[in-house]
């Protein structure tokens, strides 16, 4: 396949070099230069590799909190199982039917494909929004790790309704862990990434082992004869903890679906699937969703029930697996925060001219550490995950519409690239407008992204149609 014409070689692109964005855009292009080329057929990966990547990537520190929150939100066993099976299935289908087909056709990362569709300027804005999201996510990872380290120093975990730091000890812990994670990220991202892949099977094992070990404390008999009874009365008993909203099957289904919304519907995983031989490789995401998310969330639910429903991942893991449990929380936080910090640094590097990588990682780490001091980010993790996906979702809809719908309706594709737009204002309007509409939707936060996605699709097609008609009239 030939290299796409998105490298700023069009006459209009050359004409924009004087604009305020041109230097930022060129710096950004340099950063992503390494994955500028389309993936060649000889570089495609086997299905087993995709299975391994998904199985390894979807057991993170957040899993300790998410499954536990399902219990605190009073989900019943039936609702949990049906919601997880169907929600994860929808996530797998989103990877298979939305993300993988586009990735295997264009063989580019989302960054380079976005540049053709929404213009380099709006791509910068998208990158910065993504960086902010990454910083908050890494901050939540640090907070979760702080609960593990806090055990040894007697620092209490902030109560569920906390927004601000509740003690000096918590701030010191968050700063220490944040500083440690940032230093390690500066010292060597690649080596740590390799170490993270070694950690994944072990962390997954600690989830399973911990859940098995706490069963006796919940009253489960050795022959498992009362397992169902214990599960429905002592774990997922349908009774929310004080101050927690009651969740049903639809909440779980939608959460499991949108937990990685930015990756599948938001198309970030184009970076991964551009190496797939066929679009059906999206089905390998099931290795991350079922043994990963589903089982880990069930295990952390069992562990929090045994810890008297206290949202304290460190204590929960310590009671279930001793020092290995504490180590798992710390390592899960670290190995997930590390690439997140790296990505945030990469995204922020476009607005920091000539800064070396260590300096920008330091800034991203400092911001993340400050955020980690605020327990609200991990105590409201479910809402944050929903917002994360929601904020980036309209851009996924824009790309989907541009790739599939516009050619079918005879509307010109890649107008931003062809006309040399720095900003595709239609895409920007769809992004902002969709989020504004989602904000006012009278439905639960978890459900808003789905109607929002269709609104974004339809609105973008209409706006591009109008822009294309303008072109037709001008040429006539």
């Amino acid at each position, binding site marked *: 396949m030939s290299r796409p014409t998105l490298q700023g070689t069009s006459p209009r692109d050359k004409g924009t070099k004087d604009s305020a964005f041109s230097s930022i855009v060129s710096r950004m292009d340099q950063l992503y230069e390494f994955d500028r080329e389309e993936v060649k057929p000889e570089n495609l990966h086997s299905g087993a590799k995709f299975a391994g990547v998904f199985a390894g990537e979807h057991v993170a520190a957040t899993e300790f909190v998410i499954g536990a929150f399902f219990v605190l939100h009073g989900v019943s066993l039936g609702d949990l199982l049906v919601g997880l099976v169907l929600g994860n299935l929808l996530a797998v289908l989103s990877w298979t039917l939305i993300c993988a087909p586009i990735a295997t056709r264009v063989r580019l990362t989302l960054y380079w494909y976005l540049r053709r569709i929404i213009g380099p300027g709006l791509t910068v804005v998208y990158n910065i929004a993504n960086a902010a999201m990454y910083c908050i996510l890494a901050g939540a990872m640090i907070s979760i790790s702080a609960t593990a380290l806090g055990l040894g120093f007697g620092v209490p975990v902030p109560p569920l309704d906390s927004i601000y730091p509740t003690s000096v000890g918590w701030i010191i812990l968050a700063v220490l862990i944040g500083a440690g994670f940032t230093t390690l990220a500066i010292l060597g991202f690649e080596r740590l990434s390799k170490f993270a892949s070694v950690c994944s099977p072990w962390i997954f*094992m600690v989830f399973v082992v911990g859940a098995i070990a706490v069963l006796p404390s919940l009253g489960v008999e050795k022959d498992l004869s009362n397992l169902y009874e214990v599960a429905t009365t002592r774990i997922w008993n349908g009774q929310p903890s004080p101050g927690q909203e009651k969740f049903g099957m639809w909440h779980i289904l939608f959460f499991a679906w949108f937990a990685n919304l930015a990756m599948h519907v938001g198309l970030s995983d184009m970076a991964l699937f551009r190496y797939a031989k066929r679009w059906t490789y999206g089905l390998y995401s099931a290795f991350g969703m079922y043994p990963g998310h589903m089982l880990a969330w069930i295990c952390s639910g069992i562990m929090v029930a045994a810890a008297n429903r206290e949202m304290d991942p460190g204590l929960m893991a310590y009671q279930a697996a001793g020092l290995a449990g504490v180590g798992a929380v710390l390592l899960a936080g670290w190995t997930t925060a590390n690439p997140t910090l790296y990505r945030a640094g990469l995204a922020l590097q476009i607005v920091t001219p000539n800064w070396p990588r260590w300096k920008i990682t330091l800034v991203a780490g400092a911001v993340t550490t400050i955020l980690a001091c605020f327990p609200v980010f991990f105590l409201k993790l479910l809402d944050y995950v929903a917002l994360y996906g929601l904020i980036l979702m309209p851009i996924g809809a824009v790309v989907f519409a541009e790739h599939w719908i516009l050619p079918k309706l005879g509307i010109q594709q890649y107008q931003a690239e062809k006309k040399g737009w720095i900003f595709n204002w239609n895409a920007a309007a769809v992004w902002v407008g969709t989020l504004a509409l989602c904000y006012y939707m009278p439905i639960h936060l978890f459900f808003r992204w789905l109607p929002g996605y269709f609104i974004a699709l339809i609105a973008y097609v209409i706006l591009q149609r109008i822009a294309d008609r303008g072109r037709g009239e001008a040429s006539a």
Partner: protein
Amino acid sequence: MKIIATVSTLLSLVVCLGAAVWYFLGSISYSTYTGVLAVFSVLYFISAIAWRTLAERS
């Protein structure tokens, strides 16, 4: 060496899982269970890193 590292990696995980099952069945105490888990977790990391290093070299 690579085979030893591979077997040792897998065996460490199996022993950890086995310890949890033995504890669940009441065959071992909590301190024995957590001790086995800690020791074999360390063994897992040593073996897994060795296995990965050897795999990369070959």
